[in-house]
């Protein structure tokens, strides 16, 4: 990928420049390139500044009390810092509990989704069977379906079998793989050399063991990408939990945020602190999986 990036650059001065091209032309070309680069960086810096402002503002507001929050003129650096906001949110506002719920749901989703989606993708990428391509198109097509269409009848079904206000409606469907993740795994598996599976097979290794011992160990990049995306998806999911989890006991972090103002009246700095807390795990996770995610997007883009 890097060399692709480098190539246009080496083209700035064409290798086969005719002798007629004088030094002045080249200098003008260089200064133009430098000007262009400066403009590029200036535009990007301005945009990033705009992008970062709300987040800096958020952190600043999360460290204030209500009076400081509404004070004009605005104070970017709060004095004094109210670090208690964070401990209050976590302990007094039950956020420890919500974080716990969200965390185990997300970890469950990651583990189960990696296993089930890679299992299914292995079937799609290493076996030939009638209707395979058509079925894979169906996998892709399900990504277009708005989940809400199904949610309504699933909700009624879960209500009949007494699953409302339990975690089952969020846990059970994950056992069957998810379309986007199946797609990512399949694309990746297709790029793995088949010779290794062949060799394993000749040595008497069954397909199940091939999946577990040969394919998965080679798939670290895509596993990390799927892990990050699945975690983020589960961490921020609101619609499902909002409908299925009705009791306070089972609230996830997004639900805790949604219902935030209920107990202690308006306490915006606390809400800001709660938002900061809920944004930290995604940022950390991205930082950890960063070098794989760019490639993962490249995998996803190949249609």
């Amino acid at each position: 990928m890097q060399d692709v990036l480098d190539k246009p650059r080496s083209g700035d001065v064409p290798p086969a420049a005719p002798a007629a091209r004088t030094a002045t032309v080249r200098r003008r070309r260089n200064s133009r390139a430098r000007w262009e680069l400066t403009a590029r960086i200036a535009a990007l810096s301005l945009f990033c500044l705009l992008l970062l402002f709300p987040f800096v503002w958020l952190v600043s507001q999360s460290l204030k009390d209500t009076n400081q929050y509404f004070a004009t003129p605005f104070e970017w650096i709060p004095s004094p810092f109210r670090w208690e906001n964070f401990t209050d949110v976590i302990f007094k506002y039950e956020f420890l509990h919500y974080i716990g719920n969200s965390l185990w749901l997300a970890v469950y989703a990651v583990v189960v989704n990696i296993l089930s989606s890679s299992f299914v993708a292995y079937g799609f990428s290493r076996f030939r069977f009638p209707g395979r391509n058509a079925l894979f198109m169906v996998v892709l097509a399900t990504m277009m379906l708005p989940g809400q269409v199904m949610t309504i009848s699933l909700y009624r079904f879960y209500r009949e079998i007494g699953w409302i206000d339990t975690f089952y409606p969020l846990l059970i469907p994950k056992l069957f793989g998810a379309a986007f993740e199946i797609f990512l795994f399949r694309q990746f598996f297709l790029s793995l050399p088949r010779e290794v599976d062949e060799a394993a097979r000749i040595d008497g290794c069954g397909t199940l063991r091939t999946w577990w011992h040969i394919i998965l160990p080679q798939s670290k990049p895509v596993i990390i990408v799927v892990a990050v995306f699945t975690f983020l998806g589960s961490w921020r999911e609101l619609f499902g939990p909002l409908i299925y989890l009705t009791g306070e006991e089972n609230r996830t972090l997004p639900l805790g945020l949604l219902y935030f103002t209920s107990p202690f009246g308006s306490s915006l700095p606390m809400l800001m602190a709660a938002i900061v807390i809920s944004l930290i795990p995604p940022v950390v996770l991205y930082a950890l999986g960063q070098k794989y995610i760019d490639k993962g997007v490249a995998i996803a883009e190949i249609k």
Partner: protein
Amino acid sequence: MSMVSAEQRPRLKRRWWRREGVQGYLYISPWLLGFLMFGVAPLIAAFMTSLSKANVFRTIRFVGTDNYSKILTDDPVFATIAGNMLIYVIGSTIISIGLGLILALLLFKDFRGNHVFRTLIYVPSLLVGIATAYLFKQVFRGGEVGLANMFLSLFGTEPVNWLGNSEKPWLALVALILVNVWFAGGTMLIFLAGLKGIPASYFEAARVDGAGPWQMFRKVTLPLLSPVIVFNTVMALIGHIQVFETPLAFANSGGVATGNPLGYENSLGTFVTYLYVKGFVYQDMGYASALAFIMFAATLVLTGLVLWLARRFTAYGDADQN
């Protein structure tokens, strides 16, 4: 794989479940099962529900297409929402695609710090959800406290009442669209991957032929990037049609139960928030199911429109595109 197994088949009598085809089905069976249970079955059930009406005692009555005709012809709230959605989806898609593409083009050059910019732009798009929705609700707060108004005051503009303006309820929708500026990083990254996939020799050739930057963009980048543009546009449309957290957060004052979840004069109503209100607040499942199918139909129509436009206006170099 199949070649080897074909050679071996006569020698080794294989059990039926060892056959390649059977094994393939076994491996995809979890998805197939899940698709039937959590996809096909609820889809059919939802369609049946959309043709019925249940009263408070949950006795279900078949009403034919009543729900659909009521939504489409006799529901002023839905009419407002359909208008909202049209503006929101078009505005947001323009931001996602236009801004995403511009940012990708700016980053499509190797320079020191490129990586930092890319990360800063991409990360917010991973944070989208109720947390950022509440953050932007404070950003677009009326009065001098809101960050958007603080920014505008630098240019001497009076504070704007964004989310509850009785004279200009549409300002809430504008705020809702503007939030997408912060989440253009997702499309940006896919555009960047697409740009990197264009063989450098094409740019080289255009340069040797004396193409300027604009010509280069029009004649080389844009046509070769068109499959990625189409892909991104379709994905952006689907995502924007299903917008939920931000309008819900913008509209609610306090918990979800207080205030109109569709915003002041329904100015923040979207398909999914309306579906949520009808289905899960008022428990009118038939109506909500019909809404879901109308939303699905709208998705298909818009996707079809994009694909049709793409076919009309772009020349695919099909040989090179995978």
